[in-house]
């Protein structure tokens, strides 16, 4: 029982990441109809916002400590971050410690700006082009973004820890009345789940309850008619792109402490996020979220030893098996709308 609860938690956690990425992707792909292969790169850049802020806060003044030596036998240069000099060691250290939560604030304007620039500078010209061209241009963009990150940060994963206070884990089982120490879950993963829920709720509320959201939803349904009404739908689509980029970026920022970011993490998630969006159904935001959680939970269950011993390797392919079964039984995925990217 506790094993199952743990795997459900794992699944929800993975699912949050999948759902967040898919949510952003489906805003662009499922609704604007742009096949955005650069979406994974946006997620990656989000994570690197956290890395960058961490590095910035760690910018250090070097002082020579003659009593110690470095690996070549020269006097050791000791680094003290500027923030510690400015704000005092303790407060300065606390700022550095909290770099990931701070990066959330830091990343929002950056990601929105990147989204705007991408849309205005590039994607805008591709709305009326075939999907194939969109694939090529966004894939090119993804490679470029990825290589730039690789150039400045290298290829190895870079550790970006969560604040000290959230680094541990807590006994979730004891809260529910299980034996102590059976269901232990890391704080940060709990936070990630809660964070994802807030973002997903926020995006839904935004599209549901604001005039802006209403127009955008109308625009998804029938772009030309809305255009005829004299509403500048293009501008709103730009904002949508910024929103999608911000969602992807935030998913990345928060993901950084879970797994150390590296430059190709976007590509690792790219294919998966397309599968999630399509399984959820094209043009459906709730579908994408639902599919994200569903596949996350399935993946977690498939990696249980009991299941792997019956079907070796099932954890490698469960997502694809599930995708095939769902797409064959439900022609437009879980909640897809008719006529979106069907030809």
């Amino acid at each position: 029982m506790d094993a199952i609860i743990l795997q459900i938690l794992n699944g929800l956690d993975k699912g949050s990441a999948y759902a967040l990425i898919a949510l952003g992707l489906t805003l662009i792909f499922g609704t604007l109809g742009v096949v955005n292969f650069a979406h994974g790169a946006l997620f990656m850049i989000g994570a690197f916002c956290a890395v960058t802020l961490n590095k910035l806060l760690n910018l250090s003044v070097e002082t020579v400590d003659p009593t110690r030596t470095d690996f070549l036998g020269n006097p050791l240069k000791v680094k003290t971050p500027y923030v510690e000099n400015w704000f005092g060691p303790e407060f300065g250290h606390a700022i550095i410690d909290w770099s990931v939560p701070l990066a959330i604030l830091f990343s929002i304007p950056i990601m929105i700006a990147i989204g705007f620039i991408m849309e205005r500078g590039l994607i805008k010209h591709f709305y009326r082009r075939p999907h194939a061209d969109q694939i090529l241009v966004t894939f090119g963009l993804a490679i470029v973004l990825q290589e730039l990150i690789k150039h400045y940060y290298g290829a190895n994963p870079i550790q970006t820890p969560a604040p000290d206070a959230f680094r541990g884990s807590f006994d979730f089982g004891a809260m529910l009345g299980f034996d102590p120490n059976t269901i232990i879950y890391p704080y940060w993963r709990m936070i990630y789940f809660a964070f994802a829920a807030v973002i997903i709720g926020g995006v839904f509320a935004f599209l549901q309850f604001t005039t802006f959201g209403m127009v955008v939803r109308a625009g998804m349904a029938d772009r030309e008619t809305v255009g005829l009404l004299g509403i500048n739908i293009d501008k709103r689509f730009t904002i949508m792109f910024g929103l999608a980029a911000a969602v992807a970026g935030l998913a990345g920022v928060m993901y950084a402490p879970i797994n150390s970011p590296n430059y190709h993490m976007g590509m690792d998630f790219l294919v998966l996020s397309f599968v999630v969006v399509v399984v959820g159904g094209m043009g459906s935001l709730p579908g994408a979220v639902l599919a994200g959680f569903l596949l996350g939970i399935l993946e977690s269950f498939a990696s249980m030893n009991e299941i792997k011993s019956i079907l070796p390797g099932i954890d490698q392919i469960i997502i694809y098996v599930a995708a095939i079964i769902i797409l064959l039984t439900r022609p437009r995925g879980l909640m897809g709308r008719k006529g979106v990217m069907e030809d």
Partner: protein
Amino acid sequence: MTNKLTRRGLLKTGAVGGAGLALPTIFTSGANAFTNEPTGGTVTLGFNVPQSGPYADEGADELRAYMLAVEHLNGEGDGGMLNTFSSKVLEGNGILGKKVEYVTGDTQTKSDAARASAKSMIEKDGAVMITGGSSSGVAVAVQSLCQEAGVIFMAGLTHSNDTTGKDKKANGFRHFFNAYMSGAALAPVLAKTYGTDRKAYHLTADYTWGWTQEESIMAATEALGWETVQAVKTPLSATDFSSYITPVLQTDADVLILNHYGGNMVNSLTNAVQFGLREKVVNGKNFEIVVPLFSRLMARGAGENVKGILGSTNWHWSLQDEGSQAFVKSFGTKYGFPPSQAAHTCYVQTLLYADAVARAGSFNPCAVGEALEGFEFDGMGNGPTLYRAEDHQCFKDVLVVRGKENPTSEFDLLEVVEVTPVGQVTYAPDHPMFAGGALGSCNPGA
């Protein structure tokens, strides 16, 4: 730098034939005694390292080491390990008086791409030796290519038993240690530190290297009294290991062994620490995590999580012997940071190749192979070493290391716990883990 463009060694003789149609020479049968025989004043080596993909940083470090080795061979720089190497035939005038030039390529850590890259070095650039790589799949694939093409392959970082086990080849040589050696070196230290009554849970990357390491570590630890509770394979593409870590909590295992490398290792270790495994007490003992193959470059990605974790490594820059010091000094002076174990093995392999050519007096792969087989040397950082003739594997001391508690710099992540003497990690050439396959006979190509 005055490196000129490299080219097929064949060219010069051809060019002598002058303008007009020279008689076509056939690659596989004809004018040359062996593939890409260097006939001009230069010799070309092929450095085939990952430049894209997850191991790109390791590849970059390997490339730095190669460039340093070329400098030293050509008599530039401070000579590095040439000064400490027990064999003294290399004089800093290139190899056999021919200036060393090199070409580079990107393996992308894919067998296909690595072979394509190696082929282009052989066919286009006239490389007479290929070296490098950062994974066993690539090493085995390129090794068999070199066997067919008739050039020497000096493996880079490859840890799988198969490279000098069932997939060994007459033209291929490995200096790096292997999974069996990791197990043999690590197990006694584990038993000493954690006791002999332990229950281990393995998480293993689901491909050939992972399997050989799991097999090796399991055998070595079980021989000392440990019990293996479970061994679970994880997909190579996995990024989040939470769903593999949580089942560990459900068993009575008190040690987690992570047979992962690179990004997999960083993520699985980070995840394991997140789940509070290290604070756990099972069977009245502290829960422990072991990473059998440590890479300092990769360990950086796991940050604080590596502290206190035991593992093995081929070499570490903090070693105090003459050879290591000389290498660290010239590498550190040139690049500003200490070399990785990948850099070390690649540097040493290049020197060993050059030395073998010099001793053999020929670039012919068969002569070089003969010179390397059974060669005993010292002064290259791991103590006295033997290149065993039966399987072309180097036998030398293995380092057991631990993540350092108080690092003084970003490079100072590991501390050497024990230098396991070579005798303890030596095995018979027909050891079952290395059975199957045969060296075959050396192939000089032409």
